[in-house]
């Protein structure tokens, strides 16, 4: 019985990792996407080089850099925090790409109409483009969320007690590799399936008839 409780503990940690890092990623990713379409070149350059940089680095390399590198510079925080930060910073780049793709799906006539009545950049973006982009962004965002659940397993590599780490520890204690592995798989299904359903529901709610 206690093994199931340990798995539940692991699930709780995985959920926290995913939710916290995804919240960071959404805020940062949205900011980056806005920077990328803004009229100010330095912001555009910053956002696009950020996205490129994140795409070029393996997640684990970034995580190890944050966990072992930053303490050398005098920044100390827990393993959990650094995993959340790294996951958030990493997927912010993908969210930026998704939002930008969403912005590109808004019909050009909408933007021309907004410009022709004299709206400014922030008005066009905030009142015309982004509200219409939301609908086409939800499905890929759902995909990213499910990917985030799986990516949170990277925390196990540095010893954050998530599902993967718990499974590893239970295997050390019991040497029952197959049931433990199936249990961990079931735990991930338990998280990804409801997430998938939720985002599909959200997509239907947000559907705009054109």
């Amino acid at each position, binding site marked *: 019985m206690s093994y199931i409780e340990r798995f539940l503990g692991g699930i709780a940690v995985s959920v926290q990792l995913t939710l916290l890092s995804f919240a960071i990623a959404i805020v940062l990713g949205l900011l980056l996407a806005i920077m990328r379409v803004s009229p*100010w070149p330095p912001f555009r350059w910053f956002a696009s080089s950020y996205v490129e940089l994140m*795409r*070029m680095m393996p997640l684990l*390399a970034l995580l190890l850099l944050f966990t072992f590198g930053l303490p050398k*510079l005098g920044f100390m925080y827990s393993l959990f925090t650094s995993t959340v930060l790294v996951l958030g910073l990493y997927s912010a780049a993908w969210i930026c790409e998704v939002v930008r793709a969403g912005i590109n*799906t808004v019909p*050009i006539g909408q933007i021309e109409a907004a410009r022709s009545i004299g709206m400014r950049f922030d008005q066009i973006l905030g009142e015309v483009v982004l509200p219409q982009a939301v609908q086409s962004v939800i499905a890929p965002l759902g995909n990213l969320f499910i990917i985030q659940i799986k990516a949170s397993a990277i925390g196990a590599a540095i010893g954050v007690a998530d599902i993967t780490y718990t499974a590893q520890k239970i295997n050390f204690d019991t040497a029952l590799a197959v049931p433990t*592995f199936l249990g961990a*798989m079931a735990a991930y299904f338990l998280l990804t399936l409801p997430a998938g359903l939720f985002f599909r529901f959200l997509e239907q709610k947000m559907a705009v008839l054109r």
Partner: protein
Amino acid sequence: MSADNLLYEPPGPLARRRNRIISVVGVVLLFGFAYAVGHRLEASGQFDAHRWKIFLHPGTLKFLFDGLMATLLAAVISTVLAFSLAVPLALARLSNRLWVRTLAAGYIGCFRAVPLLLLILFTVILLPSIGLHWSALGYLIFGMVLHHSAMTAEIVRAGILSLGRGQKEAALSIGMRDHQAMVWVVLPQALKLMLPALVSAVLAIVQDTSLGYIIPYEELLRRSQQISSFAPQSLLQSAFIVTVMYGFVSALLLALRRWIERRQAYDSRSRKKQAQVTEVNLGGAVEVTPAMQSVLRPTSERVPGRDQ
């Protein structure tokens, strides 16, 4: 960059001045941040010569270079195996026979839903217990192939579905059998369409070989950790150099993808709008790896000027 597609009017004199001010503030902020980081690094002595000296030694460079080669070796073998598994898997997933379809869907669903890290950890535990004692490279490749064949199969499936029924129907109508239509008509076109997505899949595989770190397989990331445990003062420096090495490989692949996309945009310019592997026809059912998220953006819908 044509001015018509922007999210803002071409700036007049007033707006131009405002934009200039905001840009200057942006540059100052960026430089301020860079300066703060640089100062922090300087203050903790990260630029000191003794921290970099180890990398002037040819042995260290060879050590890291071998790590890079190990990474590439694992990536190449995984790519070949995963891709050659992915095509039959995708075909099975689209098969007319229910049991074939279900089996393939089960395989793909299982190995896509499980984090690669978990898969690799238990590959290392499970394979020896059934009597398969392989090298670390073997375990890493086994786990990667399981995961990435499922991932790539979904890309291939999406590519086949995005081609549209007409091609297959035309092939059938001139008397081809199902498999002939698939092999000679549908697959060649579909593979061409999904080429950029496949390059991104390769990029994901290259980056995922860094998970060999936990087996441990002596790849690039592992080697950088070994250097920093041998010379603790050079931790950040070895991380920096390894990042540059990964970045170099990734940049090559990204450049390849961009080149392919440009070629394809050029090819399809004269034709009417071409079906692409897009977010739209992938639908919500298909999960997209981060590395290919941007590929799936329909190139035909990309608007110049809004796409800096």
